[in-house]
């Protein structure tokens, strides 16, 4: 009951943080196609990527298949139609006509995390361009060896300004805006890379999902990836069980080194991740020609663990940095516990996902709902139980990307039908009275002095 919560806050029974969280959850639960706001998209191609800037949460950047990128103001409308629907037109548009614009599809468009003065676009014409927002000029571009599918910048980076880019080539390249050169090349994947995501808890950790079905964790201060997520490593429950015995200890240790120095003292080969503790002894006895002694922090490219039976098309971490969601072309969505590297076995109900394109997933900040573009609709799932919470149907064609803006609890979605739709919390016509037995069945307008 909403008014009960307000009363509780007034009296001091409910703390401010809780009140806020309850309000947000309530609003997020009532999302529907917005009847007060719309974007007039100038794109002539499918909308592939959406992002709202991280500093203010005001400007929406979208990238489309016709090589155009547009910026919209999500707060203030440019015009109001008959005082009801606020239309937001684009403030900025760069397209093929632009002197240095992209020639083919823009697959990713992202803001510079520190301020809105720069944005980065990555395209199938093998270029990654950095633009100055105010002058709408290309400041820098990076040539990649293949079509660029994904680009990401760390939202919490203070010491570096690296753009991680993944292309059809097997290596992840990190481009530095400060110097204009490639600083890192991360090898390990066996096929192209479709999705990239920086960790929300450390500015040095990058996660990449490839077309070979593997998700690799890279610490850019060291060489090589330190973890590969394996779908057969699983834990029952949100967090790994507390260690009870030494064998359990060994098993969990073999999953992946924690970043503590303890891992340096233990010897492990790349293949030992799949062995149970009793087998590790026999493994060491029979030395095959393919086993190499590796630095214990490395996970070699021989580790062929897959996290999906197909390509990994989308990655998203929760804001607290503890969980990672991955969507694959085997039409499954998996929730991983980042700390232990295990599959939490949450089964998100049957969905069909697009297979050829990278998808953009969205999670609410208190991680409770995950939004997934499924064919022509967006499905919202409860993140811990996997049940379908809501299906948003409104687009005419396949949906590619979605972005959830936490400040106003609005969801923006872009699809192949060239539209960006806004889904906002629906306000009921009169105040809610769900569980109120007294006013059950009567609307506020019908009440009078004799109603009971």
């Amino acid at each position, binding site marked *: 009951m909403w008014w009960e919560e307000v009363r509780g806050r007034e009296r001091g029974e409910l703390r401010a943080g809780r009140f806020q969280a309850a309000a947000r959850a309530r609003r997020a639960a009532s999302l529907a196609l917005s009847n007060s706001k719309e974007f007039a998209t100038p794109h002539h191609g499918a909308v592939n990527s959406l992002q709202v800037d991280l500093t203010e949460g005001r400007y929406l950047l979208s990238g489309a298949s016709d090589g155009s990128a547009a910026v919209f103001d999500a707060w203030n409308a440019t015009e109001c139609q008959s005082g009801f629907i606020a239309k937001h037109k684009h403030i900025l548009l760069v397209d093929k006509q632009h002197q240095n614009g992209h020639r083919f599809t823009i697959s990713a468009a992202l803001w510079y995390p520190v301020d809105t003065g720069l944005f980065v676009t990555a395209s199938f014409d093998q270029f990654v361009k950095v633009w100055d927002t105010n002058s709408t000029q290309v400041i820098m571009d990076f040539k990649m060896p293949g079509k660029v599918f994904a680009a990401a910048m760390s939202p919490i980076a203070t010491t570096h300004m690296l753009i991680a880019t993944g292309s059809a080539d097997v290596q992840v390249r990190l481009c530095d805006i400060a110097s204009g050169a490639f600083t890192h090349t991360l090898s390990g994947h066996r096929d192209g890379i479709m999705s990239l995501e920086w960790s929300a808890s450390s500015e040095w950790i990058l996660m990449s999902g490839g077309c070979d079905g593997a998700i690799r964790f890279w610490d850019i201060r060291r060489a090589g990836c330190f973890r590969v997520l394996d779908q057969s490593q699983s834990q029952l429950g949100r967090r790994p069980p507390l260690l009870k015995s030494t064998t359990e200890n060994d098993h969990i240790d073999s999953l992946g080194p924690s970043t503590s120095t303890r891992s340096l003292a233990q010897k492990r080969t790349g293949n030992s991740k799949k*062995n149970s503790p009793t087998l590790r002894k026999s493994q060491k006895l029979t030395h095959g020609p393919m086993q190499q002694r590796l630095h214990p922090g490395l996970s070699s490219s021989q580790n062929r663990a897959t996290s999906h039976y197909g390509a990994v098309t989308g990655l998203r971490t929760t804001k607290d940095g503890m969980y990672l969601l991955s969507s694959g072309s085997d039409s499954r969505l998996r929730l991983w516990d980042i700390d232990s590297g295990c599959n939490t076995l949450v089964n998100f109900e049957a969905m069909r996902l697009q297979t050829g394109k990278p998808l953009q997933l969205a999670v609410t900040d208190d991680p409770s709902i995950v939004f997934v573009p499924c064919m022509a609709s967006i499905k919202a799932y409860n993140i811990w139980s996997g049940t379908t919470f809501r299906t948003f149907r409104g687009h005419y064609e396949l949906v590619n990307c979605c972005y959830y803006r936490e400040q106003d609890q609005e969801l923006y979605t872009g699809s192949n039908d060239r539209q960006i739709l806004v889904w906002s919390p629906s306000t009921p016509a009169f105040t809610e009275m769900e569980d109120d037995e007294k006013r059950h069945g009567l609307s506020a307008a019908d009440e009078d002095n004799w109603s009971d």
Partner: protein
Amino acid sequence: MTEPSSSYSLSSKKRPRSPNDNGEHPLDRDQICPSLEDNLTFNDTMIALQLMRTQFPKLEKVVVQPFILQSQLYSSVKDRTQVDRDLESFKKDKVLRIFKLSSGQDDHAIMFLDDYLKQVAFAIKRSGGKEQDGSEVFDWFEKYVIPSKLDVSINQLQLCSLLSQGGDVTDKHITLLMNAGLLTRQLIDPNIYWFSIPRIGPILKGLSQGRKEILSLLNRKKYKGMLLSSLEKTKLRLSPLDTRFLIRDLIGSGQIKTVQTPTGLLARITRD
């Protein structure tokens, strides 16, 4: 080969479709078999598994120990996450094994361990028996590989190291295992062998044919749907499998959804 006739009286919910059936009174069958609608969902994974195991369709030409498809399990237990977690703990307790099938993406089959061992023994007998050269590999497989490797797949190195606990392993041994149908390769990764249930080829074919047939049957209807009770009674032309088996599988994989109507459950093709 010889199916005990007690299986017909064992579970009244069985409705086999083989021609041997024609002798039964249709009236009895309707009375004693509750329809799929009444028994669609359960709360416990193990109960659902055992019930579906008894409902496994019996074919007259092929003898196969019962197995359950994972999609069928999803359609019959409400909470899918709980199903996954229960399966994982049963797998670790070595009560059952999970196999990845090559028919379609993400198809898995669940089989109880003793059924699997019986099937393996049957397959070994059919593929040439114990008199072959190198047939000790079957014993090694059963003794060393099955109990210790609980996943759906195994890579070359591990396979060799596990088998070599019994003796020297050569390529011939692995060929024997593959000929018997215990290991297969799939297109995903050339270095990995996948565990498989031997001798279920006709059933997999029946599965894919049956799925196509049911979906095309529903697609031809005007509103792409049909009452579940009448769907269950249709006899499939191309597939020898039970309609109920296939319906559960399609519901679980999300291609058919059931809608409650005043006249019962309606099965409809999902549109997204």
